[in-house]
């Protein structure tokens, strides 16, 4: 077993000892419930005739009034040369506004049906003690995103939707799979054997797009209690975008403890596995400079980090 595998194998054990198993898996369980819920609400119709939501993640109609459309898919139709009808545009604006306000990459960790697949791949990857493998730069996903638009423009089709594992997996479960499971399996094998955290963390253009919406959103994880950090490294071991932690956790007195990086998916796993309760969910304005008449906390000193 390699060192990194050992590090993973023990990641969270101290937290379990300190907070109990449930306490050390709180957000993981909530996330799985959320993911199952977003899938389940679409399945209530076809399975039980309870039509709360119709359609799938690319576009849906809730309670026959609320249209929701994936903004990335809609932008592809624009790129393909089609000006969509108002319903879809309205739906995309609603979705984009909600994610931009709340947290762009909440989509990745709380909604996306591929997330449990790549999480499983990562779990197995670590259990097998496999090497990191191919690690393309994390910025590669933006190039892939650009490719999606150029491809749509050049072919006049929604290029990404021909292969998108995210929408394909969701649609497959709700409308019938055909061989779409092969695409999902390909992502699984890619993450398991080829590239640790490769798909969600480096390549997926859907995550890249929602990351762009994450720039100014409110919900944030903060290493608020970072002075209590005992350097166990468990948070780094479980974080799918480990580079986002460093500036917040290792920042000096003047720097914000809030994870402001757009790559953070707000999965809350770092909160779970920390036995010292360093992390917690907060909002981005928790970092506002304290008023001069109040007591000034060093951690909340004004910064330009946001």
């Amino acid at each position, binding site marked *: 077993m390699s060192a990194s595998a050992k590090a993973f194998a023990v990641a969270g054990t101290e937290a379990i000892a300190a907070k109990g198993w449930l306490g050390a898996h709180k957000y993981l369980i909530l996330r799985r419930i959320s993911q199952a819920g977003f899938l389940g609400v679409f399945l209530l119709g076809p399975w039980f005739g309870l039509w709360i939501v119709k359609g799938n993640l*690319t*576009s*849906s109609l809730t309670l026959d009034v609320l249209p929701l459309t994936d903004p990335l898919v809609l932008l592809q139709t624009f790129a393909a040369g089609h000006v969509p009808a108002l319903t*879809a545009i309205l739906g995309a604006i609603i979705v984009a506004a909600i994610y931009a306000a709340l947290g762009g990459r909440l989509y990745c960790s709380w909604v996306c049906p591929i997330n449990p697949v790549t999480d499983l791949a990562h779990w197995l990857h670590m259990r097998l003690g496999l090497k990191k493998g191919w690690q393309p730069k994390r910025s590669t996903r933006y190039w892939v995103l650009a490719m999606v638009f150029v491809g749509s423009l050049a072919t*006049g089709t929604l290029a990404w939707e021909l292969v998108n594992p995210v929408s394909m997996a969701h649609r497959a479960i709700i409308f019938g799979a*055909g061989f779409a499971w092969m695409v999902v399996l390909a992502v699984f094998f890619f993450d398991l054997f080829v590239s640790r955290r490769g798909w969600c963390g480096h390549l997926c253009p859907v995550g890249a797009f929602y990351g762009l919406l994450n720039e100014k959103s409110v919900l944030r994880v903060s290493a608020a209690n970072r002075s209590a950090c005992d350097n166990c490294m468990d948070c780094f071991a479980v974080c799918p975008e480990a580079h986002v932690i460093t500036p917040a956790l290792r920042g000096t007195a003047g720097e914000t403890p809030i994870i402001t990086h757009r790559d953070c998916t707000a999965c809350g796993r770092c909160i779970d596995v920390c036995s010292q309760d360093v992390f917690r969910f907060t909002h981005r304005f928790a970092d506002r400079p304290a008023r001069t008449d109040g007591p000034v906390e060093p951690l909340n000193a004004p910064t330009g980090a946001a």
Partner: protein
Amino acid sequence: MANARESQGLTRRRVLQDAARAAGGCAAAGLLLGLYAVEARELPAEALRPPGALPERDFLGACVRCGLCVRDCPYDTLSLAELGRDGAATGTPFFTARDVPCEMCDDIPCVAACPTGALDPGLQNIDDAQMGVAVLVDQEHCLNYLGLRCDVCYRVCPLVDEAITLERSHNTRTDSHAIFAPTVHADACTGCGKCEKSCVLPEAAIKVLPARLARAEAAEHYRLGWEEKEKAGAPLIGDLIDLPDRGFEPALKLPGAGGVQ
């Protein structure tokens, strides 16, 4: 100072190299994706799009594959193409006439459900739908052509006597009966597929095909004399001029005809 400049140059080179690598990788992947996209544009002849669907090329740039049309179809006619199983581009809606034809609802719920306009909301009357054109593809097996009175395709047609008529002709085999040939009139046919669905043969003699396969196209310069005559309200060349017949006079001299050299 020189060192700093040198390392800056190295950093710049590194950045450019990384960018080139990412761009090159994505270009390679993108070309494959583009190839696949072009391949996926081909819609199999038996896969029919829902009413109001834009022309196939535009449709593939407009449909987001949400399946709302599928959900609002009261007859479960439509389904989303499954990857590797159905020929249509993955996730796009289609129907197969022989399985479940389109029932041509007056309120066209599938079009109303479409959020993007891939199914054109301009389609207000279902009789104007152009999902395909029925073609009697096999006269040798069609029972009506064999001289029987099957008539099923004619009777189930929602636009009976407009989209399909029975054209009577003499049955030369028996010499004492008639043949009632089911005849499709493409301008009226919506391509709903009810005829194909109900054809009594094990394999339908009448099939709905996409218009590109079902229809010929007259050359642009062709004019039908009788139509032009009707448009003009009179024969286009006016009264015929009756010229005197000539050519029999012995005086006519043609080269090489035995005249004076």
